[in-house]
Each structure stands twice: as structure tokens, then as C-alpha cells.
């Protein structure tokens, strides 16, 4: 009732002008530019997350240092913090009044930064529990048989944490595609340059252009569904031995 009905209404509205109208609305240059930018930036952010998320999870599981529990707690901060505050934070450090002299406000680099902030916990939190489970004896065995460190990682550790990385990356990707709160402040929302799909939907909706808005919204909805399917698929693949 709460979830399905509004989505049905959205689908209905996007078809209001027929399939042609829908296609025309999606292929409008500004809409295409916004969608391309969103998908491109989301892909970059997802990759950064895959790399640094794994490194952070590794540090939290395998490394020992003072203050580790604080670091572990801080990871969740982007989940707890309102996203609009996240945007303001990044603007405070990398914006026009930047104390470090880095001025990125209203650029694509700023969008990437703020989205990295917002999606930080996803990969860390999916990889961490899997990494705890990895048997270190297997690594020792590989090492004693003469395997180099990078080989131990790529042959033994990576295969077991890969499903975790992938589903974390997928969640982060979905989150980043739809993100708006943190972006409205920092991106400047210049059409064709820094206007993201979510902002496009927002603006078109506010201007009463609901066909244009709903068309792009349906594309975003499709991306969300695709990501959920992808995660479901990974989960099935990863647990296939347990179920068999």
C-alpha cells in the first residue's frame, strides 16, 4: 500500500503521453545529459568505494592499533548524518571559503567527493563480516608453500570477499544514483554540466513538467530494480554451496 501504489502512479504518469511521449521525454538533451552524468559519476564513486572500502575493511579486521574502535564507529556516521549536512560539510572544506585553498564547489569533482562521503559505509560494512570469516590458516599455508603476498591476496582472500565487495558496491551505486540531499547544495545544478538525474526530476516536477520528470524517474526506478536483482543474484551465487 505504502510502497507499491505510488510506484504504480509513477508508471501510469510516465505513460500519459504514450510510449512516444515517454521516449521523447527521456531522450531530451538535458535529460540524457543528466542521466549520463549520474551513471558516469556513480560508476566512478562505486569504483573508489570498491578500492578504499576494501582497504578500510581490511585495516579494521586485520590491523591492530589504538583508537580502532573509534574509527570503526565513525564509519557509520554518513548513515546517521542527514545528507544535506554532508553536502554542507564538504562545501565547508572544499568550497569557496576553503581553508586549504581547494575550491571545488559547483564542479563534478565536488559531486564525486560528496558522494564518496555519503556511500562510504556500504562496502566497508559488507566486506568486514566476510573478512572476519576468512580462515587465516589457508593464507599461512599458501605462504609456507612459497606464495607471494599479492598472490595470497588475489587467490585466497579476494575470491572469498568478492561477493561482499560486489554487493556493497551495488548498494553504494544505487544509493549514489538516487542521492539528492547532499548534491543540491554543492553541485550548483548547472544543466548539462553538474545537473544530476535526481535534481532534474526534482526541478521538472517543481515546474509542473510531470511527464519529463516521471520519465527520468522511471529510468531511475529501473536502475534500482536492476541493482536489487544483481544483489539477489550475487547472494544466490555466494550461498550456492550452503543450499546445495
Amino acid at each position, binding site marked *: 500500500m505504502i*510502497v507499491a501504489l505510488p510506484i504504480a502512479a509513477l508508471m501510469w504518469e510516465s505513460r500519459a503521453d504514450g510510449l512516444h511521449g515517454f521516449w521523447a521525454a527521456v531522450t531530451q538533451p538535458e535529460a540524457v545529459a543528466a542521466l549520463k552524468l549520474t551513471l558516469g559519476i556513480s560508476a566512478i564513486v562505486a569504483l573508489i568505494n570498491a578500492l578504499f572500502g576494501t582497504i578500510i575493511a581490511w585495516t579494521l579486521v586485520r590491523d591492530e*592499533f589504538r583508537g580502532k574502535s573509534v574509527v570503526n*564507529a565513525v564509519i*557509520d*556516521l554518513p548513515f546517521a548524518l542527514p545528507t544535506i549536512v554532508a553536502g554542507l560539510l564538504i562545501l*565547508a*572544506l572544499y568550497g569557496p571559503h576553503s581553508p586549504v585553498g581547494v575550491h571545488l564547489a559547483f564542479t563534478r569533482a565536488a559531486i564525486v567527493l560528496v558522494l564518496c562521503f555519503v556511500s562510504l559505509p556500504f562496502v566497508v560494512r559488507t566486506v568486514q563480516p566476510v573478512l572476519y570469516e576468512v580462515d*587465516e590458516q589457508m593464507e599461512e599455508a599458501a605462504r609456507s608453500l612459497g606464495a607471494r603476498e599479492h598472490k595470497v591476496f588475489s587467490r585466497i582472500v579476494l575470491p572469498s570477499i568478492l561477493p561482499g565487495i560486489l554487493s556493497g558496491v551495488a548498494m553504494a551505486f544505487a544509493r549514489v544514483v*538516487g542521492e539528492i540531499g547532499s548534491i543540491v547544495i554543492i553541485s550548483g545544478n548547472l544543466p548539462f554540466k553538474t545537473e544530476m538525474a*535526481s535534481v532534474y526530476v526534482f526541478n521538472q516536477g517543481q515546474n509542473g513538467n510531470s511527464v519529463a520528470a516521471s520519465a527520468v524517474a522511471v529510468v531511475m526506478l529501473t536502475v534500482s530494480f536492476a541493482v536489487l536483482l544483481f544483489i539477489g543474484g550475487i547472494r544466490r551465487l555466494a550461498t550456492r554451496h550452503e543450499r546445495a
Partner: protein
Amino acid sequence: MPRTWRTYAVRFTALGYLVLILVAPLSMLFWRVWVEGVDKAWAAITDPDTIHAFKITLILCAITVPLNTVFGIVCGLAIVRRRFPGKGLVNAFVDLPLALSPVVVGFSLYLLYGRTGWFGPWFTEHGVQVLFALPAMVLATIFVSVPFVAREVVPTLREIGNEQEQAAYTLGASSWQTFWRVTLPAIRWAVIYGVVVTTARCLGEYGAVAIVSGNISGRTETATLRVQDYYENLDQAGAYGVALMLCVLAIAVLVVMTKLKPKEEMI
């Protein structure tokens, strides 16, 4: 594992990234409030419209969190313990808000309850204003925070199994008694953790509420919208001041989350 330069390199990279992306911006918030003037920030926080905005946010939390808690528990029980047609679909719809943009959520609600929407005209006839008023904002907040309790409850329910519940049944307990005496105590930490996450999400929701609320100062403005309002009126001190308030709330939520987590894992 021996401490090699590799260990330190990895640690340094991880912590360096965290500082750049997380810690430095966060400390900047406090710095900015200081630079802009604590008195100005305080004036912004104690402005009647800001106080009203925080009230609205709290009202939204107070309505949404209990509803979603009950729904999440029922949904979790249904997904784990029952078999019914369309179960996969229910599962997918519970997860959807996690992956869906809040803007899409807000816009869908806007279409549903707007002047030309499916339900809009009916509500207008009966003199109930849904859009640009509290009801639509509640609906939007419920939508975006639906999954959290269910997500926490489902794995815990799977883990504890249903032997104890069956034992209770064979000893003559009704299903109501079984739920209150056996199931709920076993999943309570998962529920509490889910409630905390839901609260955080409700406090911080922006996109969905921004579309359906109409953003009227002193009436339908929430705390997050208030931040944007200040920012767009070039009142930096105000924006950073209200943001700091929200930040303090978020850190409070985070502390509760961290305190709860180990207990949940011990079960």
C-alpha cells in the same frame, strides 16, 4: 602476521582516506560555526521557524518510527516464518526503498495525491489536505524508512530458528503469548537497532519530503529543509548552525548504535 611496511601502508591509506573524506569535513563544520559567529548560529537555532522545523521533524519521527517498527516486525515474521503466494514480491518491495531515490519516492507520492492524481481529488472533496501538509510528509518518511527494522529482524529470526516457539506451542501457549514471551525477547536487540537506524533516516530525510512538503517556512518545513533555506538565503551562519544541531543529533544516534551493536552480536 608480521608487521611489515605493507601493514603500515594499508593502514595509512585507509586512515588517510577517512580523514580526507570524513573527519576533516566534519571538523570543518565546528570551525565554520566558530568563524561565522556562535551567537549568530545560536540566533538561527533559536529562531521560531527553526524550532518549528525541528518540531515537525520530531513529529514525523514520532509517527513514523512506531508504525515502521510494528510493520517491520510483522513483515520480518511473515518473510521468515510463513509461506504465502507473492512472498518474493513482498521481499523485493521491502528492499526497494533502500535502492530507490528519495526524489522518485517523493515525486510518485506527488503524482498520487496531487490535484490530478488518483487519490488527490477524493481527498480534496472531503476537505483533507494531503499534499504540502503533514500527511504527505508522513507518507514520504514512512516510505523511505520502511526497510530498516525488517532488514535487522529477518537475519536474527533466521538464526534463532523456531524450536523455542514450537516448544511454547506444545506447552499450550497461544500465538499471541508465544510472540510476547518467546519471539520478541529473542529479537529485541535487532528491533532496537532497527529503530535507531529508522530514527536516523527520519531525522535526515530530505529528497522525498522536499517534494511533497511545499517547503513553507513555519508550517511544513523540516530541519533538513531549514538548512537549505538558510543556505539559499546566503545565511551561512544559520545554515551551519542548524547543520551543527542535526550533526549533534546524528552523533547521538551513532553513539547509541555503537553501544547496541556488540550486544546484538553476542546473541
